């Protein structure tokens, strides 16, 4: 075993340690906290590179894969051998290595960026503590060789996300968004948990790879496929769909996507790191990790139901979120919906084209979306916490580096042909969808999504960077008002004139990310699919002919992108030049649809009136049951007891004692009457005596006769 495999745990452990130490630091020790976090992250990055290198060479039987397992605790009779213990472990394979590099690299850049972005925040120390905690948990997900360890890290990621979204806890909206995020993802996690338990009870292990005994290895899969459960689903399918619930929660798939746009309440680096590049991709990573289980089916020729579900949910999400993004005005919310939409693409790619297709988009997206978010952060930073794109404008002159890098990110996201990474990864997904046997609808949905993406990104560009370089007076007033309310906002310059480029600590990461947003496409072109080879464990060959094969499709997607961008230019170039930005041209044309989209298809409202109301009602019912019903039953029983004892008393007193008492009463009554004669009046007694005497005499006389 390679030493790096044995010490793979160091990669998440270092940031965890940093987080622990930072948690103990005093608020004032800002520099130490940043140093700790960035230092640990750089070491992790180097270690990740060290782990990456060996995976480039693949062994004789496919991919490079080594794992290290250990027993965590024992919970049963040891006659069951390994089944009686819970084992954890980590694995090093191309999937892990690639994610490790991506997470540590993007993470490192974002950490550095945060030093600038959060420079004036009073809880700076805490911020780096949370960031490092997040990085540790995310890396834990990546290296996990056990579904349980993955789940543990998964929950910790959720915690870190909760803490970071609610970082500005004094804002009620942030606190609410944090709670919403945690709970929405937990809904999915319950499915994940059940799936995991099911898998555990069926296979007796949660290790992915364990020398042939792991749950993703052949023997276990055969067993899982053989058994069927309701609706004739193979157990493997049922389990993977349950686990997909978790992935859908984390990765914001419809219908659990509602938390992600709200999560933009957190600081922008958080949005970039967690809600664009890494955490939300964890769901996709999870599905890639359990791909053997997901795709397992009794007949190798057929596509498993699990894959179908993933593909359909992904494609629907892609279009659904893109639609909403068109009608948003908050720069971060647009990006958030775009993230949801791109995550849908990844799921779609995973479902229709396999691990490599989905993961490639994940990697490219991580870079360009992080770039976009950081760019938007730079914009927000420059515009004094203004997030409404209608109130911006002309920033291309004021913030040239931001503009340039943002434009690269935007083109990558739109899938601008040939030059940008996003084009290649998205094109591949569309190609796979096109070749999918089951249905062509996901392909068309994907194309529509691509069109919408190009459209709304162009719209955003126009609003933010073109047009007049001044912020409207209303915005200035608004910003001022915000400043007075918000002690955390860091700037106290004169707003209108002081829109400025961000400091180098912020722009440098932008530039680096922009470079990667362009170049990364080269590792996964149809002509040289190195990435796919890397993941699948074979060496790719350069084959320009492949390029030609897919040329038709590329052309289609290029046409779609150009059309969308052109249309958007037609609609918005004029608007941005004029000052009347309050009403969107599309809103004028289709007010109904616009409102529908602006309100996100009323999904939140739908949940509000259904699930949340239901939950409230249920809890009120439970409370009522408790206070009234159960207590009522108890009270009734106690009343019954009291009643019974009353009855028994009555019987005792009236029936049994009654007869006796009645006699006594008679006696008492007569004696009372008699005692009335005893009135204490001596002279009365005399009279009685006299009368008695007379009576006696009469009696004697009568006797004498």
């Amino acid at each position, binding site marked *: 075993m390679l030493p790096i495999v044995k010490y793979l745990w160091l990669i998440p452990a270092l940031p965890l340690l940093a987080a622990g130490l930072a948690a103990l630091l005093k608020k004032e020790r800002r520099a130490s906290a940043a140093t700790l976090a960035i230092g640990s992250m750089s070491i992790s990055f180097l270690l990740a590179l060290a782990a990456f290198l060996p995976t480039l060479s693949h062994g004789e039987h496919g991919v490079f894969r080594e794992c290290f397992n250990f027993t965590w605790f024992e919970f049963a009779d040891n006659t069951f051998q390994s089944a009686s213990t819970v084992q954890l472990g980590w694995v090093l394979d191309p999937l892990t290595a690639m994610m490790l590099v991506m997470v540590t690299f993007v993470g490192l850049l974002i950490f550095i960026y945060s030093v600038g972005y959060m420079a004036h925040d009073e809880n700076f120390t805490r911020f780096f503590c949370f960031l490092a905690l997040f990085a540790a948990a995310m890396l834990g997900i990546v290296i996990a060789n056990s579904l349980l360890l993955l789940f543990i890290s998964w929950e910790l990621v959720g915690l870190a996300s909760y803490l970071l979204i609610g970082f500005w806890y004094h804002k009620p909206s942030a606190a609410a968004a944090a709670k919403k995020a945690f709970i929405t993802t937990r809904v999915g996690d319950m499915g994940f948990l059940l799936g995991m338990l099911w898998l555990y009870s069926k296979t007796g292990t949660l290790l992915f790879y364990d020398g042939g005994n792991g749950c993703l290895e052949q023997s276990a899969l055969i067993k899982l496929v053989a058994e069927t459960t309701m609706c004739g689903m193979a157990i493997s399918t049922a389990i993977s769909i349950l686990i997909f619930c978790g992935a859908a929660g984390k990765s914001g798939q419809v219908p659990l996507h509602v938390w992600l746009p709200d999560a933009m309440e957190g600081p922008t680096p958080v949005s970039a790191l967690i809600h664009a590049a890494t955490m939300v991709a964890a769901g996709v990573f999870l599905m890639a990790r359990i791909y053997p289980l997901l795709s397992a089916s009794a007949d190798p020729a057929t596509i498993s139901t699990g894959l179908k579900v993933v593909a359909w949910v992904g494609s629907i999400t892609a279009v659904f979120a893109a639609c909403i993004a068109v009608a948003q005005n908050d720069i971060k919310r647009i990006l958030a919906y775009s993230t949801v939409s791109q995550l849908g693409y990844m799921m779609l790619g995973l479902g229709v084209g396999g691990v490599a297709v989905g993961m490639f988009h994940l990697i490219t997206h991580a870079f360009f979306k992080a770039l976009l978010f950081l760019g938007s952060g730079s914009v927000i930073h420059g515009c004094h916490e203004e997030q409404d794109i209608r109130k911006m404008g002309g920033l291309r002159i004021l913030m040239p580096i931001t503009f340039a890098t943002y434009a690269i990110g935007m083109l990558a996201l739109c899938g601008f042909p040939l030059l940008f990474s996003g084009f290649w990864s998205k094109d591949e997904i569309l190609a796979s969808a096109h070749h999918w046997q089951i249905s062509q609808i996901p392909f068309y949905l994907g194309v529509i999504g691509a069109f919408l993406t190009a459209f709304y990104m162009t719209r955003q560009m126009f609003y933010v960077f073109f047009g007049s370089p001044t912020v409207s007076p209303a915005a200035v007033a608004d910003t001022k008002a915000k400043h007075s309310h918000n002690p955390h906002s860091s700037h106290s310059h004169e707003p209108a004139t002081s829109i400025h480029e961000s400091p180098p600590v912020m722009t440098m990461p932008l530039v680096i990310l922009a470079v990667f947003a362009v170049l990364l496409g080269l590792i996964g072109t149809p002509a040289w699919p190195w990435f796919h080879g890397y993941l699948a464990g074979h060496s790719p060959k350069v084959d320009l002919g492949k390029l030609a094969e897919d040329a038709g499709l590329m052309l289609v997607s290029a046409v779609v992108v150009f059309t969308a961008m052109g249309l958007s230019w037609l609609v918005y170039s004029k608007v941005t030049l004029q000052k009347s930005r309050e009403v969107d041209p599309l809103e004028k044309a289709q007010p109904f649809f616009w409102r529908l989209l602006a309100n996100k298809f009323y999904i939140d409202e739908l949940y509000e009136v259904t699930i949340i109301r239901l939950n409230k009602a249920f809890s009120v019912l439970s409370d009522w049951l408790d206070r009234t019903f159960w207590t009522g039953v108890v009270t009734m029983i106690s009343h019954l007891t009291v009643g019974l004892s009353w009855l028994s008393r009555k019987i005792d007193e009236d029936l049994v004692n009654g007869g006796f008492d009645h006699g006594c009463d008679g006696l008492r009554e007569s004696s009372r009457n008699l005692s009335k004669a005893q009135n204490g009046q001596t002279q*009365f007694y005399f*009279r009685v005596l*006299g*009368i008695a005497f*007379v009576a006696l*005499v009469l009696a004697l006389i009568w006797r004498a006769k």
Partner: protein
Amino acid sequence: MAERLLLANIVMLNSIAFYILAVITLAGAVAALTLRNLVHCALCVAASFAGIALIYLQLDAEFVGFAQILVYIGAVAILVLFTVLLTRGTEVQAGVAFLSRSWPAGLAVTALVFAAIAAPILLTPELHKLAADSASAPVRKIGEELMGNYVLPLEVIGLLLTSALLGAVVIAMQDKKD
């Protein structure tokens, strides 16, 4: 003849004395129980007692007559008088009825009792036939009887009088607290 006449006169005089004494006694008794002033009552009752003593003498019971005088007039009447004085019975309270509320009933009962006593007396003819011999109860004989047949009652009476004396003193004695 003259001696018999004298005797007859004496007998007649004796009878006349009884009637006079009876009237006096009854009048004293009635006065004692009807007068409002308690001192007058006490004096009247003393007169009544004296009348009875004289009737005893008239009936040739000299010892009893003198005992009556000593005890009733000398002791009881004086005692009553003292009591009246001690209890401020001299103050006649005007406006307060001197008879109890139920006096009519008392009167009726008295009438009945009188009837019950008088009727047997009047309806018994044997009583009229009894005639009185000249007789006397000599003091000597009484003394012998007291020391002979009646010695035990005498002792008991002595004891009774002693205890009554003590009892009266104890009862009438003022409580120390008061």
